[in-house]
């Protein structure tokens, strides 16, 4: 009936050698693919709103395709399809030895871009048409108008939503078990299996993910209130 939890094995050494590397990787994966995903996503959003039919179609297929496949399958596909020469080319032996970890970064960047692009599209569409017309009226080109007038406003309006999506992204990093990358969850599981304390480690993983995600979403909520006042 009782769980008889025993955390006595969890010394600073165990944490440092098993969990910290996983935590660091989960953070790197989140940050790199959030930044890359938002940049790529903005590009896709611009394509989707462009006047070129070909670009629009490409962007629609990109977004719809990635959004109807489970992330786990996308992770498997990228791991299968990216040749190992690619990892050697970007990071030498280190890349070849950390193939799952690098593969996940590329996968998440491209996958999350589909989700970020929908957010950025809503953001761009929330900027009033008068702003664009004013930009053109003072002689700006399309790219100047986007860079200097529309995107900064779109980005600021959507900042809370972009950050919320990034918290989801952080939770999704736990799915890299599909290709065996060493993330936060894997760190806990490794420690749990070495010391035969699976239950303790799964529960602790839940607590850590909860504190991080809940804490960050509280911060996002405060930011949202602040932005509302500025507007």
């Amino acid at each position: 009936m009782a769980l008889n939890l025993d955390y006595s094995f969890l010394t600073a050494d165990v944490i440092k050698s098993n969990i910290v590397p996983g935590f660091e990787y989960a953070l790197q994966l989140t940050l790199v693919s959030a930044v890359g995903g938002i940049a790529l996503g903005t590009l896709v959003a611009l394509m989707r709103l462009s006047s070129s039919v070909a670009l629009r179609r490409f962007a629609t297929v990109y977004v719809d395709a990635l959004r109807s496949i489970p992330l786990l399958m996308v992770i498997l596909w990228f791991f299968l399809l990216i040749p190992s020469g690619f990892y050697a080319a970007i990071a030498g032996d280190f890349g070849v030895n950390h193939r799952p970890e690098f593969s996940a970064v590329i996968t998440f960047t491209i996958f999350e871009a589909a989700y970020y692009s929908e957010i950025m599209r809503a953001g761009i569409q929330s900027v009033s048409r008068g702003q664009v017309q004013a930009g053109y009226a003072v002689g700006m080109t399309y790219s100047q108008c986007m860079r200097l007038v529309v995107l900064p406003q779109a980005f600021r309006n959507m900042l809370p939503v972009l950050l919320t999506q990034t918290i989801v992204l952080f939770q999704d990093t736990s799915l890299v078990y599909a290709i065996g990358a060493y993330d936060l969850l894997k760190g806990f599981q490794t420690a749990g299996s070495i010391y035969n304390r699976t239950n303790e480690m799964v529960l602790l993983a839940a607590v850590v993910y909860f504190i991080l995600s809940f804490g960050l979403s509280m911060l996002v909520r405060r930011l949202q209130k602040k932005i509302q006042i500025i507007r």
Partner: protein
Amino acid sequence: MSDWLRRSAELMCKSTTDETVYSTCFAGKGDLTYLQWLFQAWGWTLLVALVALAIALVIGTVIGVMRTLPNKGVAFFGEAWTELFRNIPIVVQLLIWYNVIPELFTPLKAVPPIVLAFVGLGLFTSARIAQQVKSGINTIPQGQRYAGLAMGLTLAQTYRYVLLPVALRVVLPTLTSESMNIIKNSSVAAAIGVTEMYYFATQAGEETSMHATMYLGVTILYFISAFTINRLAAGVEKRTRLPGAIGGAK
């Protein structure tokens, strides 16, 4: 490429136990082709998703309503529920249902993993649905709630006849994307041993060393599932749309 396609097609019609290739792609009693195995896995995927969706809709609506009630304790319970199930990754939640909960309630040890997947995925999604239901109720002007209460309706009647008929129809479009999400999220159930499509993709890929073939089959079926749910939900949405709302019936 065409050679790969030919080999893939042949593989899907091959027995999973011996080297027999069935011309119809369907083996008789006692044997199974890879295509049949894939369809079985598809069945498990749909079963997990649909049962979990039913659980999520019921519990999510209840929790969403609780979060809008005047009673502080009840509202807090609803908020806590939502935050708990929203801020822990789905795979971690499923591992807890699989490893930890049966230790607490030993009768659950006899329960097959798929039932734990129903519950785990259902409760995970209930938090998201509760979020939608809450904001749906909050979009209704406060005056309607007061009008209902002023007419002498009880709080329960106000929800039943005034608030929920509007709120639930407002949130329907977002439920479409939740139904698609639950199909995708069901792929995590393989982590606790449910033999659904992700399990098939890795397992059959491993057995045959034709990973791309198996992934492709699974990906196509995920596409079809997502697309079908999308169409079904769009139909429901059209029939229940609020007259007068943007894009609503005139």
